[in-house]
Protein backbone atom coordinates (compact mmCIF):
# COMPACT_ATOMS: atom_id res chain seq x y z
CA UNK A 1 0.00 0.00 0.00
CA UNK A 2 2.76 2.37 0.99
CA UNK A 3 4.48 1.68 -2.32
CA UNK A 4 1.34 2.36 -4.31
CA UNK A 5 0.82 5.65 -2.50
CA UNK A 6 4.32 6.70 -3.21
CA UNK A 7 3.85 5.94 -6.98
CA UNK A 8 0.67 7.93 -7.00
CA UNK A 9 2.45 10.79 -5.29
CA UNK A 10 5.17 10.71 -7.86
CA UNK A 11 2.63 10.67 -10.64
CA UNK A 12 0.93 13.64 -9.08
CA UNK A 13 4.12 15.67 -8.96
CA UNK A 14 4.88 14.74 -12.55
CA UNK A 15 1.41 15.81 -13.62
CA UNK A 16 1.92 19.05 -11.80
CA UNK A 17 4.97 19.95 -13.83
CA UNK A 18 3.56 19.58 -17.32
CA UNK A 19 5.05 20.91 -20.50
CA UNK A 20 3.60 23.70 -22.53
CA UNK A 21 4.35 25.29 -25.84
CA UNK A 22 5.20 28.96 -26.12
CA UNK A 23 5.05 31.22 -29.15
CA UNK A 24 4.80 28.63 -31.86
CA UNK A 25 5.26 30.33 -35.20
CA UNK A 26 5.53 29.25 -38.78
CA UNK A 27 6.86 30.93 -41.88
CA UNK A 28 6.60 29.83 -45.47
CA UNK A 29 9.17 31.37 -47.78
CA UNK A 30 10.32 30.96 -51.35
CA UNK A 31 13.93 30.25 -52.31
CA UNK A 32 14.54 33.99 -52.85
CA UNK A 33 13.54 34.57 -49.19
CA UNK A 34 10.17 36.12 -49.97
CA UNK A 35 7.79 35.33 -47.16
CA UNK A 36 4.57 33.90 -48.51
CA UNK A 37 2.88 33.41 -45.21
CA UNK A 38 3.88 33.91 -41.61
CA UNK A 39 1.75 33.56 -38.54
CA UNK A 40 1.67 32.44 -34.99
CA UNK A 41 -0.02 29.15 -34.25
CA UNK A 42 -2.92 28.92 -31.93
CA UNK A 43 -2.96 25.69 -29.98
CA UNK A 44 -6.69 25.67 -29.59
CA UNK A 45 -7.64 26.40 -33.16
CA UNK A 46 -6.00 25.05 -36.28
CA UNK A 47 -5.06 27.67 -38.86
CA UNK A 48 -5.98 27.50 -42.49
CA UNK A 49 -4.12 24.53 -44.05
CA UNK A 50 -0.60 25.41 -45.09
CA UNK A 51 0.50 24.84 -48.65
CA UNK A 52 4.09 24.37 -49.76
CA UNK A 53 5.28 24.69 -53.34
CA UNK A 54 7.94 22.37 -54.70
CA UNK A 55 10.72 24.83 -53.82
CA UNK A 56 9.25 26.51 -50.74
CA UNK A 57 10.59 26.27 -47.22
CA UNK A 58 8.51 25.90 -44.09
CA UNK A 59 10.10 27.24 -40.93
CA UNK A 60 8.63 26.33 -37.58
CA UNK A 61 9.85 27.82 -34.30
CA UNK A 62 8.60 27.35 -30.77
CA UNK A 63 9.76 27.18 -27.19
CA UNK A 64 8.97 24.48 -24.65
CA UNK A 65 8.48 25.59 -21.08
CA UNK A 66 7.32 24.11 -17.83
CA UNK A 67 3.79 25.26 -17.44
CA UNK A 68 4.00 26.50 -13.88
CA UNK A 69 7.31 28.34 -13.81
CA UNK A 70 7.55 29.46 -17.42
CA UNK A 71 11.14 28.30 -17.60
CA UNK A 72 12.42 26.77 -20.82
CA UNK A 73 13.16 23.05 -20.64
CA UNK A 74 14.56 20.52 -23.01
CA UNK A 75 12.25 17.53 -23.23
CA UNK A 76 13.87 14.20 -23.77
CA UNK A 77 12.04 13.52 -26.98
CA UNK A 78 10.57 15.98 -29.45
CA UNK A 79 8.99 14.75 -32.62
CA UNK A 80 6.99 16.18 -35.44
CA UNK A 81 4.51 13.70 -36.81
CA UNK A 82 3.32 13.92 -40.38
CA UNK A 83 0.22 11.80 -40.86
CA UNK A 84 -1.78 11.20 -43.98
CA UNK A 85 -5.27 10.28 -42.83
CA UNK A 86 -6.33 9.07 -46.23
CA UNK A 87 -3.50 6.63 -46.83
CA UNK A 88 -2.60 5.93 -43.19
CA UNK A 89 1.05 6.70 -43.91
CA UNK A 90 2.95 8.62 -41.30
CA UNK A 91 6.41 10.03 -40.83
CA UNK A 92 8.18 10.91 -37.63
CA UNK A 93 10.81 13.62 -37.69
CA UNK A 94 12.92 14.35 -34.58
CA UNK A 95 13.38 18.01 -33.76
CA UNK A 96 16.46 19.39 -32.06
CA UNK A 97 15.68 21.47 -28.94
CA UNK A 98 18.21 23.66 -27.16
CA UNK A 99 18.69 23.31 -23.36
CA UNK A 100 16.72 26.53 -23.07
CA UNK A 101 13.74 24.85 -24.71
CA UNK A 102 13.97 26.68 -28.02
CA UNK A 103 13.41 24.68 -31.18
CA UNK A 104 13.59 25.46 -34.85
CA UNK A 105 12.51 23.14 -37.63
CA UNK A 106 12.92 23.70 -41.32
CA UNK A 107 11.26 21.76 -44.09
CA UNK A 108 12.81 22.53 -47.45
CA UNK A 109 10.83 20.95 -50.23
CA UNK A 110 13.84 20.95 -52.54
CA UNK A 111 15.39 18.37 -50.22
CA UNK A 112 12.60 16.94 -48.12
CA UNK A 113 13.69 14.72 -45.21
CA UNK A 114 13.26 11.02 -45.71
CA UNK A 115 10.80 10.81 -42.87
CA UNK A 116 8.09 12.65 -44.83
CA UNK A 117 5.57 10.05 -45.95
CA UNK A 118 4.64 9.75 -49.59
CA UNK A 119 2.27 12.59 -50.40
CA UNK A 120 -0.74 12.80 -52.62
CA UNK A 121 -3.21 15.64 -53.03
CA UNK A 122 -4.39 14.93 -49.46
CA UNK A 123 -3.08 17.10 -46.62
CA UNK A 124 -0.76 15.80 -43.93
CA UNK A 125 -1.77 16.36 -40.36
CA UNK A 126 1.22 17.77 -38.51
CA UNK A 127 1.42 17.32 -34.77
CA UNK A 128 4.10 17.88 -32.20
CA UNK A 129 4.83 15.12 -29.69
CA UNK A 130 6.81 15.82 -26.55
CA UNK A 131 8.11 13.10 -24.29
CA UNK A 132 9.92 13.47 -20.98
CA UNK A 133 11.02 11.39 -18.05
CA UNK A 134 9.86 13.95 -15.52
CA UNK A 135 6.96 15.66 -17.24
CA UNK A 136 3.68 14.44 -18.54
CA UNK A 137 3.78 13.75 -22.27
CA UNK A 138 2.09 16.22 -24.53
CA UNK A 139 0.79 16.22 -28.06
CA UNK A 140 -0.30 19.28 -30.02
CA UNK A 141 -2.11 19.13 -33.32
CA UNK A 142 -0.50 22.03 -35.09
CA UNK A 143 -1.88 22.37 -38.60
CA UNK A 144 -2.64 20.66 -41.84
CA UNK A 145 -0.04 20.78 -44.51
CA UNK A 146 -0.39 20.40 -48.25
CA UNK A 147 2.81 19.19 -49.88
CA UNK A 148 3.43 18.71 -53.57
CA UNK A 149 2.61 15.15 -54.54
CA UNK A 150 5.72 13.08 -54.17
CA UNK A 151 7.25 11.14 -56.97
CA UNK A 152 7.82 7.59 -55.89
CA UNK A 153 11.52 6.91 -55.95
CA UNK A 154 12.38 4.32 -58.52
CA UNK A 155 13.22 0.89 -57.26
CA UNK A 156 16.65 -0.29 -58.41
CA UNK A 157 15.07 -3.31 -60.11
CA UNK A 158 12.33 -1.24 -61.70
CA UNK A 159 13.90 -1.34 -65.14
CA UNK A 160 13.90 -5.13 -65.29
CA UNK A 161 10.15 -5.30 -64.95
CA UNK A 162 9.24 -3.61 -68.17
CA UNK A 163 8.85 -4.89 -71.66
CA UNK A 164 12.22 -4.67 -73.32
CA UNK A 165 12.47 -2.93 -76.66
CA UNK A 166 12.28 -5.34 -79.56
CA UNK A 167 15.65 -6.66 -80.58
CA UNK A 168 16.65 -5.39 -83.97
CA UNK A 169 19.34 -7.29 -85.77
CA UNK A 170 21.67 -5.30 -87.88
CA UNK A 171 23.31 -7.18 -90.69
CA UNK A 172 26.29 -6.33 -92.72
CA UNK A 173 25.22 -5.21 -96.17
CA UNK A 174 25.13 -8.01 -98.69
CA UNK A 175 28.50 -8.49 -100.32
CA UNK A 176 28.45 -7.83 -104.00
CA UNK A 177 30.29 -9.49 -106.81
CA UNK A 178 32.55 -7.16 -108.77
CA UNK A 179 31.40 -6.00 -112.21
CA UNK A 180 31.18 -8.74 -114.78
CA UNK A 181 34.03 -7.32 -116.80
CA UNK A 182 36.42 -7.39 -113.84
CA UNK A 183 35.28 -10.90 -112.97
CA UNK A 184 35.85 -12.05 -116.52
CA UNK A 185 39.31 -10.49 -116.73
CA UNK A 186 40.42 -12.06 -113.49
CA UNK A 187 38.86 -15.41 -114.35
CA UNK A 188 40.94 -15.40 -117.53
CA UNK A 189 44.00 -14.35 -115.53
CA UNK A 190 43.55 -17.09 -112.97
CA UNK A 191 43.03 -19.65 -115.74
CA UNK A 192 46.07 -18.44 -117.67
CA UNK A 193 48.52 -20.68 -115.74
CA UNK A 194 46.95 -23.60 -117.59
CA UNK A 195 48.39 -22.16 -120.79
CA UNK A 196 51.76 -21.87 -119.10
CA UNK A 197 51.49 -25.46 -117.87
CA UNK A 198 50.52 -26.83 -121.28
CA UNK A 199 53.25 -24.76 -122.91
CA UNK A 200 55.90 -26.02 -120.54
CA UNK A 201 54.77 -29.61 -120.79
CA UNK A 202 54.75 -29.55 -124.56
CA UNK A 203 58.19 -28.00 -124.50
CA UNK A 204 59.54 -30.65 -122.18
CA UNK A 205 57.81 -33.26 -124.27
CA UNK A 206 57.58 -36.16 -121.88
CA UNK A 207 56.30 -39.21 -123.66
CA UNK A 208 53.70 -41.39 -122.07
CA UNK A 209 53.78 -44.46 -124.29
CA UNK A 210 51.97 -46.67 -121.79
CA UNK A 211 49.13 -44.30 -120.96
CA UNK A 212 46.63 -46.37 -122.91
CA UNK A 213 48.05 -49.74 -122.02
CA UNK A 214 45.52 -52.13 -120.56
CA UNK A 215 47.16 -52.23 -117.16
CA UNK A 216 47.30 -48.42 -116.78
CA UNK A 217 44.05 -47.16 -118.22
CA UNK A 218 41.70 -48.59 -115.53
CA UNK A 219 43.65 -46.78 -112.80
CA UNK A 220 43.66 -43.48 -114.67
CA UNK A 221 39.98 -43.85 -115.42
CA UNK A 222 39.13 -44.58 -111.79
CA UNK A 223 41.13 -41.58 -110.59
CA UNK A 224 39.19 -39.54 -113.12
CA UNK A 225 35.98 -41.06 -111.78
CA UNK A 226 36.95 -39.82 -108.30
CA UNK A 227 37.32 -36.29 -109.62
CA UNK A 228 33.99 -36.57 -111.42
CA UNK A 229 32.42 -37.78 -108.18
CA UNK A 230 33.80 -34.75 -106.34
CA UNK A 231 32.48 -32.37 -108.99
CA UNK A 232 29.15 -34.14 -108.71
CA UNK A 233 29.33 -33.60 -104.95
CA UNK A 234 29.83 -29.90 -105.56
CA UNK A 235 26.90 -29.76 -107.93
CA UNK A 236 24.35 -32.03 -106.26
CA UNK A 237 25.31 -34.77 -103.81
CA UNK A 238 25.12 -34.84 -100.05
CA UNK A 239 28.09 -35.66 -97.86
CA UNK A 240 26.86 -39.15 -96.94
CA UNK A 241 26.30 -40.08 -100.56
CA UNK A 242 29.77 -38.93 -101.52
CA UNK A 243 31.36 -40.96 -98.76
CA UNK A 244 29.32 -44.02 -99.78
CA UNK A 245 30.09 -43.75 -103.50
CA UNK A 246 33.69 -42.86 -102.73
CA UNK A 247 34.02 -45.92 -100.53
CA UNK A 248 32.59 -48.13 -103.28
CA UNK A 249 34.81 -46.51 -105.87
CA UNK A 250 37.87 -46.93 -103.67
CA UNK A 251 37.83 -50.74 -103.84
CA UNK A 252 38.38 -51.17 -107.62
CA UNK A 253 40.74 -48.18 -107.57
CA UNK A 254 42.98 -49.87 -105.05
CA UNK A 255 43.24 -53.01 -107.16
CA UNK A 256 43.65 -51.13 -110.42
CA UNK A 257 46.26 -48.89 -108.83
CA UNK A 258 48.16 -51.88 -107.50
CA UNK A 259 48.20 -53.51 -110.88
CA UNK A 260 49.10 -50.33 -112.74
CA UNK A 261 51.90 -49.36 -110.42
CA UNK A 262 53.23 -52.92 -110.38
CA UNK A 263 53.35 -52.83 -114.15
CA UNK A 264 55.09 -49.45 -114.05
CA UNK A 265 57.63 -50.80 -111.60
CA UNK A 266 58.33 -53.70 -113.95
CA UNK A 267 58.86 -51.32 -116.86
CA UNK A 268 61.11 -49.17 -114.77
CA UNK A 269 63.19 -52.13 -113.84
CA UNK A 270 63.34 -52.94 -117.55
CA UNK A 271 61.99 -56.44 -117.20
CA UNK A 272 59.38 -56.01 -119.86
Amino acid sequence: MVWQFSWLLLAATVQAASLSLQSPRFTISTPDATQLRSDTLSLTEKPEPLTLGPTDTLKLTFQITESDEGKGVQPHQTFLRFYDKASGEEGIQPVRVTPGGKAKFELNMVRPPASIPPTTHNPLEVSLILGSFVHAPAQYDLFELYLPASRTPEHPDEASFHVLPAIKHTFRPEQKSPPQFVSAVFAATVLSPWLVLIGLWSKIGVKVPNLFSLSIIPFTALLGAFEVLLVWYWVDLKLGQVLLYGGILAIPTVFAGKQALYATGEWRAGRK
Partner: protein
Amino acid sequence: MAGPKSSSKPSPASSETYVAVSTLWKSYLDQTPDRLKFIDAFLAFTVLSGVLQFVYCVLVTNFPFNAFLAGFASSVGQFVLTASLRAQVNPENRSEFKEVSPERAFADFALGSIVLHFFVFNFLG
Protein backbone atom coordinates in the same frame (compact mmCIF):
# COMPACT_ATOMS: atom_id res chain seq x y z
CA MET B 1 80.64 -7.61 -102.01
CA ALA B 2 81.71 -5.25 -104.75
CA GLY B 3 84.82 -3.51 -103.44
CA PRO B 4 86.47 -0.38 -104.86
CA LYS B 5 88.97 -2.54 -106.82
CA SER B 6 86.31 -3.90 -109.10
CA SER B 7 84.67 -0.54 -109.61
CA SER B 8 86.19 -0.28 -113.08
CA LYS B 9 83.49 -2.60 -114.42
CA PRO B 10 80.05 -1.07 -114.89
CA SER B 11 78.09 -3.22 -112.46
CA PRO B 12 80.13 -6.22 -111.39
CA ALA B 13 77.76 -7.45 -108.72
CA SER B 14 74.78 -7.71 -111.02
CA SER B 15 76.78 -9.30 -113.79
CA GLU B 16 78.15 -11.87 -111.33
CA THR B 17 74.65 -12.63 -110.21
CA TYR B 18 73.57 -12.90 -113.80
CA VAL B 19 76.37 -15.34 -114.55
CA ALA B 20 75.53 -17.40 -111.49
CA VAL B 21 71.85 -17.52 -112.29
CA SER B 22 72.40 -18.38 -115.94
CA THR B 23 74.81 -21.14 -114.96
CA LEU B 24 72.30 -22.51 -112.52
CA TRP B 25 69.54 -22.40 -115.12
CA LYS B 26 71.73 -24.05 -117.72
CA SER B 27 72.76 -26.86 -115.43
CA TYR B 28 69.13 -27.33 -114.44
CA LEU B 29 68.13 -27.63 -118.08
CA ASP B 30 71.00 -29.97 -118.86
CA GLN B 31 71.04 -32.25 -115.86
CA THR B 32 67.47 -32.53 -114.65
CA PRO B 33 65.56 -35.53 -116.02
CA ASP B 34 62.56 -34.70 -118.15
CA ARG B 35 60.20 -36.37 -115.71
CA LEU B 36 61.31 -34.00 -112.95
CA LYS B 37 60.97 -31.04 -115.30
CA PHE B 38 57.47 -32.26 -115.98
CA ILE B 39 56.74 -32.13 -112.25
CA ASP B 40 58.50 -28.77 -111.94
CA ALA B 41 56.25 -27.33 -114.61
CA PHE B 42 53.27 -28.46 -112.60
CA LEU B 43 54.77 -26.89 -109.44
CA ALA B 44 55.23 -23.62 -111.29
CA PHE B 45 51.63 -23.88 -112.43
CA THR B 46 50.32 -24.29 -108.87
CA VAL B 47 52.46 -21.40 -107.59
CA LEU B 48 51.32 -19.12 -110.39
CA SER B 49 47.71 -20.13 -109.91
CA GLY B 50 47.81 -19.54 -106.15
CA VAL B 51 49.53 -16.16 -106.51
CA LEU B 52 46.99 -14.96 -109.06
CA GLN B 53 44.09 -15.98 -106.84
CA PHE B 54 45.68 -14.19 -103.92
CA VAL B 55 46.21 -11.08 -106.01
CA TYR B 56 42.54 -11.20 -106.99
CA CYS B 57 41.56 -11.55 -103.34
CA VAL B 58 43.68 -8.56 -102.34
CA LEU B 59 42.96 -6.27 -105.27
CA VAL B 60 39.32 -6.96 -106.09
CA THR B 61 37.35 -8.80 -103.42
CA ASN B 62 37.45 -11.85 -101.23
CA PHE B 63 33.77 -12.49 -101.91
CA PRO B 64 32.86 -15.34 -101.85
CA PHE B 65 35.46 -16.05 -99.24
CA ASN B 66 34.89 -19.82 -99.09
CA ALA B 67 35.58 -20.10 -102.80
CA PHE B 68 38.79 -18.15 -102.39
CA LEU B 69 39.81 -20.40 -99.51
CA ALA B 70 39.06 -23.49 -101.55
CA GLY B 71 40.98 -22.27 -104.59
CA PHE B 72 43.96 -20.99 -102.66
CA ALA B 73 44.11 -24.04 -100.42
CA SER B 74 43.96 -26.34 -103.43
CA SER B 75 46.92 -24.50 -104.95
CA VAL B 76 48.95 -24.63 -101.76
CA GLY B 77 47.99 -28.22 -100.94
CA GLN B 78 48.65 -29.45 -104.45
CA PHE B 79 52.02 -27.73 -104.37
CA VAL B 80 52.95 -29.46 -101.15
CA LEU B 81 51.83 -32.88 -102.40
CA THR B 82 53.62 -32.43 -105.70
CA ALA B 83 56.78 -31.20 -104.02
CA SER B 84 56.89 -34.28 -101.84
CA LEU B 85 56.26 -36.47 -104.88
CA ARG B 86 59.15 -34.79 -106.63
CA ALA B 87 61.40 -35.26 -103.63
CA GLN B 88 60.60 -38.96 -103.48
CA VAL B 89 60.94 -39.79 -107.16
CA ASN B 90 64.13 -37.79 -107.64
CA PRO B 91 66.90 -40.32 -108.41
CA GLU B 92 69.34 -38.07 -106.52
CA ASN B 93 67.36 -38.73 -103.35
CA ARG B 94 67.30 -42.46 -103.78
CA SER B 95 69.47 -42.91 -100.68
CA GLU B 96 67.02 -40.86 -98.60
CA PHE B 97 63.93 -42.84 -99.62
CA LYS B 98 65.25 -46.35 -99.92
CA GLU B 99 62.05 -48.08 -99.00
CA VAL B 100 59.81 -45.72 -101.00
CA SER B 101 59.60 -46.71 -104.62
CA PRO B 102 58.47 -44.09 -107.16
CA GLU B 103 55.27 -46.10 -107.63
CA ARG B 104 54.55 -45.96 -103.93
CA ALA B 105 55.24 -42.22 -104.00
CA PHE B 106 52.78 -41.81 -106.84
CA ALA B 107 50.14 -43.83 -105.02
CA ASP B 108 50.57 -41.56 -102.00
CA PHE B 109 50.32 -38.56 -104.28
CA ALA B 110 47.11 -39.83 -105.85
CA LEU B 111 45.49 -40.63 -102.51
CA GLY B 112 46.56 -37.30 -100.99
CA SER B 113 45.27 -35.42 -104.00
CA ILE B 114 41.87 -37.11 -103.82
CA VAL B 115 41.53 -36.27 -100.13
CA LEU B 116 42.65 -32.71 -100.80
CA HIS B 117 40.18 -32.31 -103.64
CA PHE B 118 37.42 -33.66 -101.43
CA PHE B 119 38.06 -30.91 -98.91
CA VAL B 120 38.43 -28.32 -101.63
CA PHE B 121 35.07 -29.19 -103.18
CA ASN B 122 33.60 -29.26 -99.69
CA PHE B 123 34.70 -25.65 -99.22
CA LEU B 124 33.69 -24.52 -102.66
CA GLY B 125 30.14 -24.05 -101.46
